[in-house]
């Protein structure tokens, strides 16, 4: 019998029953909730007269709607100007209260983006199944966990039964061997992967990132990578457990301690794919070939190295692809064959569950230090991923570096990643963004998003246009 993949092992550990119809019940260890995708689930629960199966498995925090200006935040819930947003945050508070679910509220220092908060608290542990009504739940797979996004019906299902009805996916492995060139980060790696396999490349697969370049990444980098597995079409992204994982988890508030820690580590060390495991699909990239990436279009697969020129639809034979390129160039207000470094920026956003952890802020601050945001850039935002990331950055003086350079220093939340709060682009504006989606209108109707790493975003803010961060004067 061939060996098992990491995904096979996690699946086997959590399969409650396999039903006659081929579906399985999968036990869920951790369920994370936020204000946008949970209200209808709680309503459903109430209507059916049900209660949560295991309250302790749930953890909630508001993130999508919360304002991030220090002034609006200081006034708490009542000060949220947008009445619809306020109601949604308030509804989460009430639901968590009613059902006894632990919530880090807006004024709690531990509040933040769900995918930053879970790992930071040790609420995400190796070997867990983790779900949340948010597609970027794949982030938590960086810990050797089986983690993916679910819809609101499934949020209700998990609340009520602590299980999901699931079908086993196929196994995919993306291997990146070698040493990344200087200035190239996890964000560039994952954008390069998506550029290679496409936004549907991972559909139907659980994706494991492997290879020496991945093992060399910090946990923050691995989370960035797994975060964007969904942009490659894979609900699940994972990295096997190693010493880096254990060092990150040890001592976190929800992590086991003492004898339980030792027992956990013994189990967690086995959370790797066997040498003879069989993958349905394998993709290989060489680390040396990866350059800083910039997305130019309206899908994350429309991405190129910073020194490249935009594609010319005239050279594309496939009519569907040609149409996509033409439409994207038109929406983005860009020309065929234009150099990426000729794209000028109106705004810069450093934040989101992809890149708002302490390491990301350090990388951006290192570029911003002693420099100034270009006068042509209207706004450059830095939005930490959680209250604890914010506090740590302030202890290190990063906030002052950003403010002196002309960036705004904000309170934690999703912010301009999807513009559900007041942080958004005006129609036609170009934004260098460390988030994960460059869809039409994602950062505001008519807005034009370019996905980049934190260092590349900071460099773009300084230069007023895209520039290889390694060439910044």
């Amino acid at each position, binding site marked *: 019998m061939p060996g098992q993949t990491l995904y096979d092992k996690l699946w086997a550990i959590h399969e409650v*029953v396999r039903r006659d*119809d*081929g*579906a399985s*019940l999968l*036990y869920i*260890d951790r369920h994370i909730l936020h204000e946008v995708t949970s*209200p*209808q689930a709680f*309503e459903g629960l109430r209507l059916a007269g049900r209660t949560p*199966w*295991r309250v*302790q498995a749930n953890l909630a925090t508001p993130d*999508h709607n919360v304002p991030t200006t220090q002034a609006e935040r200081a006034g708490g819930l009542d000060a949220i100007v*947008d009445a*619809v*947003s306020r109601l*949604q945050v308030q509804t989460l508070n009430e639901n968590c209260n009613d059902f006894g679910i*632990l919530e880090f509220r807006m004024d*709690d220092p531990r509040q933040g983006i769900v995918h930053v908060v879970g790992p930071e608290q040790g*609420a995400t*542990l190796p070997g867990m199944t983790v779900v949340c*009504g*948010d*597609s970027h739940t794949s982030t938590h797979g960086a810990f050797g966990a089986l983690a993916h*996004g679910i*819809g609101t*019906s*499934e949020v209700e*299902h998990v609340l*009520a*039964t*602590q*299980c999901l*009805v699931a*079908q086993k*996916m196929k196994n995919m492995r993306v291997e990146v061997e070698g040493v990344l060139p200087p200035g190239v980060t996890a964000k560039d790696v994952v954008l390069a992967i998506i550029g290679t396999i496409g*936004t*549907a490349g991972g*559909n*139907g697969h659980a994706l494991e990132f492997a290879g020496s370049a991945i093992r060399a990444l910090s946990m923050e980098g691995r989370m960035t990578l797994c975060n964007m597995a969904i942009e490659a*079409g*894979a609900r699940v992204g994972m990295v096997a457990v190693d010493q880096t994982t254990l060092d990150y988890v040890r001592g976190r508030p*929800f992590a*086991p301690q003492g004898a*339980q820690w030792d*027992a*956990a580590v013994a*189990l967690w060390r086995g959370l790797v794919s066997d040498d003879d495991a069989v993958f349905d699909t394998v993709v290989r990239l060489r680390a040396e070939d990866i350059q800083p990436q910039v997305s130019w279009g309206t*899908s994350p697969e429309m991405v190129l190295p910073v020194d490249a020129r935009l594609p010319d639809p005239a050279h594309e034979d496939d009519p*569907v692809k040609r*149409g*996509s390129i033409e*439409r994207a160039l038109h929406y983005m207000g860009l020309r065929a064959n234009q150099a990426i470094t000729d794209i000028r920026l109106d705004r810069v956003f450093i934040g989101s569950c992809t890149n708002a952890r302490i390491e990301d802020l350090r990388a951006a601050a290192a570029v911003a230090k002693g420099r100034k945001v270009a006068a042509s850039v209207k706004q450059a935002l830095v939005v930490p991923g959680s209250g604890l990331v914010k506090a740590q950055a302030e202890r290190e003086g990063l906030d002052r570096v950003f403010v002196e350079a002309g960036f705004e220093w904000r309170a934690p939340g999703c912010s301009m990643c*999807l513009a*559900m709060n007041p942080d958004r682009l005006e129609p036609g504006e170009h934004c260098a963004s460390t988030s994960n989606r460059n*869809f039409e*209108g*994602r950062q505001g*109707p008519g807005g034009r998003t370019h996905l980049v790493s934190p260092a590349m975003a900071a460099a773009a803010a300084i230069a007023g246009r895209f520039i290889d961060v390694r060439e910044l004067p």
Partner: protein
Amino acid sequence: MTPFTQHAGVVAPLDRANVDTDQIIPKQFLKSIKRSGFGQNLFDEWRYLDVGQPGQACSTRPLNPEFVLNAPRFQGASVLLARENFGCGSSREHAPWALAEYGFRTILAPSFADIFYNNCCKNGLLPIELDKDVIDVLFAQCAETKGYALAIDLATQTVTRPDGVVHGFEVDAFRKHCLLGGLDDIGLTLEASAAIRAFEARHRTAQPWLFAECPSA
């Protein structure tokens, strides 16, 4: 959930690849705490010429005459014909809610994003994957024929064209069962409560730290 057994209806062609959930229902409408009211904002940014706001009445908003769903011949369409990777992006179930409330019962595409596919099935909206070549033919026929309609039968897993040609499609047994019966899968799962409790007890013994109390503030 509304059961899905058979359906015949007019086809609306949406000729774009990678249609994402932000396009299906823009995020400003996600602030609702209700399950309904999303249909009028389906494809909001393409469908209207102004920028829509939650709570706004849509009947007086300027329609984009270029957008396919606004064409007179596609009024009342209940079958959506789409391209690769339809529904990519977020896990928001608001996307299938909006499609269903607008009146779509089924979507035909060469491929769907996984979470979206799953969310559709939970809402009585049948996603049908067909070969790209078949989808190309359907697009071509739909362009040529006014009132072009398709008949879908979930029990036999078939799509029947007006010219009588029948295309089979795959759907897994569990989803088919739930869709045909309009079943509430929470109720079904709770029938296995004893098995879940037994599993939970074993799991707790093997990994007690997963069941630790949450640390307090």
